[in-house]
């Protein structure tokens, strides 16, 4: 296969499929209770310099209680698969990110991310590599398939390609140009789900985003769940189970785990709280004050929710129920 053009971006996490197979071979299939706190899960599986990714996108079903714990523990030099709003903004604001495979980091209706701007324009983030949303998910898909790359018809002809680590080749079957994306195997993935049992069998209501692909493209998988339910309840509807337990390393019970974002069928997003971050993140001082109050100033997710207040949480729940 003839390589016609190569992106000049750094391949931040080169794929090693055979090592991934060996890793998966060694991973325990034991049906054991994996329940733990955010603090325990993050301290056991997230480490300085690891390559980490989160699901989903924007403000939707983001694993925020886990993300805040990463900040609280000050895990640094993170290499990140970057599509997000609320979660990556916090990591960038806290100065934890060293390298970024970037698709979109912005505040959607609230405009550009000031945390991203400061961290990238200052050079604090050492390496920024461009991808499209489809592109990065297809990279997870390639890893999930256990193959080194995946051919796609996006990114061609653009600077998004030029500053990526993709390649354009001549397709051996059609002779046409096609873009090859390298598989992306995460050291750690964080995914927030609707419900799970204590072993890690997990179900997601509504759109599945890229949870299916990401959960199969990582070495360590930490899930947080709105509800922990009896295993029999999960097994009654295995068609709804997107993540089987043996992929999972830790299960964290995190009601309102996506706050200030939303969780389909559970609660609406907290517009007031999002606006507070938008305002605070405009300056370094504001960011610091926000983190002091909502992350460093509380010991865990339970204290965070107490700070937000039961009354507010009930309002958000009522707002989402009204949409069904």
């Amino acid at each position, binding site marked *: 296969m003839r390589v016609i053009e190569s992106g000049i971006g750094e391949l931040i996490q080169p794929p090693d499929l055979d090592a991934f197979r060996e890793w998966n071979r060694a991973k325990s299939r034991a049906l054991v209770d994996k329940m733990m706190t955010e603090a325990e899960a993050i301290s056991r599986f997230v480490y300085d310099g690891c390559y980490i990714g989160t699901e989903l*996108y*924007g*403000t*939707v*079903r983001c694993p925020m209680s886990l993300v805040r714990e990463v900040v609280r523990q000050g895990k640094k030099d993170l290499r990140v698969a970057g*599509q997000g709003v609320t979660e990556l903004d916090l990591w960038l604001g806290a100065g934890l990110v060293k390298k970024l495979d*970037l*698709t*979109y*980091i*912005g505040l*959607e*209706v609230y405009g*550009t*991310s000031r945390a*991203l*701007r400061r961290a*990238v*324009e*200052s*050079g604090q983030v050492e*390496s*920024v590599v*461009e*991808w*499209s*949303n*489809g*592109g990065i*998910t*297809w990279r997870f*898909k390639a890893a999930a398939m256990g193959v080194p790359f995946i051919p*796609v*018809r*996006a*990114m*061609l*002809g*653009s*600077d*998004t390609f030029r*500053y990526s680590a993709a390649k*354009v080749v001549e397709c051996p079957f059609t002779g*046409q*140009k*096609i*873009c090859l994306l390298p598989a992306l195997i995460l050291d750690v993935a964080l995914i927030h789900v609707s419900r799970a049992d204590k072993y890690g069998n997990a179900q997601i209501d*509504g*759109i*599945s*985003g*890229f949870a*299916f*692909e990401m959960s199969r493209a990582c070495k360590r998988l930490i899930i947080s769940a709105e509800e922990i339910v009896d295993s029999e309840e999960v097994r009654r509807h295995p068609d709804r189970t997107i993540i089987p337990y043996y992929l999972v390393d830790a299960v964290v019970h995190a009601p309102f785990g996506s706050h200030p974002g*939303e969780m*389909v*069928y559970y609660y609406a*997003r907290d517009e007031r709280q999002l606006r507070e971050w938008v305002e605070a993140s405009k300056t370094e001082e504001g960011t610091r004050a926000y983190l002091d109050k909502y992350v460093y100033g509380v010991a865990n997710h339970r204290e965070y929710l107490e700070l937000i207040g039961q009354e507010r949480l009930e309002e958000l729940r009522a707002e*989402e129920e009204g*949409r069904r």
Partner: protein
Amino acid sequence: MRQLSTGPEYNPTELLICIAARQMPDSVTAFIGTGIPMLAASLAQKMHAPNVVSIFEFGGTGARLVRLPRAVGESRTFYRGVAASGICDIMETATRGFVDFGFLGGAQIDPYGNLNSTIIGPQHHPPKVRLPGSGGGNDVGSLCWRTIIIVRHDQRRFVPQVDFITTPGYLTGPGAREEAGLPPGTGPYRVVSTLALLDFDEETKRMRLLSTHPGVTVEQVVENTGFELIIADDVGQNEPPTAEELRILRKEIDPEGFYI
């Protein structure tokens, strides 16, 4: 508010939404992003195109856009929909040629409809100004049959050359998309700006002024464009929003005034 001698008052955002909505025929699939495209698709669905199938990149398909989604993954993006899948399904649906329309925006656009939403300035890293990045934009611009670009019209945005091609338009001209390996027959279809409706000349693939918004002259459009525009033989004048369009927008789609 713009004052007109006849008809109801409206603001520039409302006009953009109405013009964009009118570009969409019924019974088509349309890839919808955050913001104005959501309002346009919703308005089209309530006016002339009840079977517009809205497609949101993280899996929501065919929703009844009763209320305005605020994020591309929230529950309103698949309310009473026909599918709630995931991003791979959506992007692969577009790759297979199933998505008729896609909406795009950007900080800069050039004569060939190439879009920049990545950086401002000559250097990629560290950049002078870092913008959000491609998101689904590159996928939409590469894979949908017809893309509609919605953008504010001024010299800062309409530039001879974008600083970074985040999303491919016609690249350097006729045949360039196909040469790059992009699917044939795709590319920018319309630009809906705050001043005018534009398309792309068949022969040169350069941007062409089709019609101006109410009260806007051809000269104003030319003055606010940082490159030479092709001017259609008979430049039309776009119809202002009707009372019914405005009622639906304000009362039904965005009563919270999130965008309008």
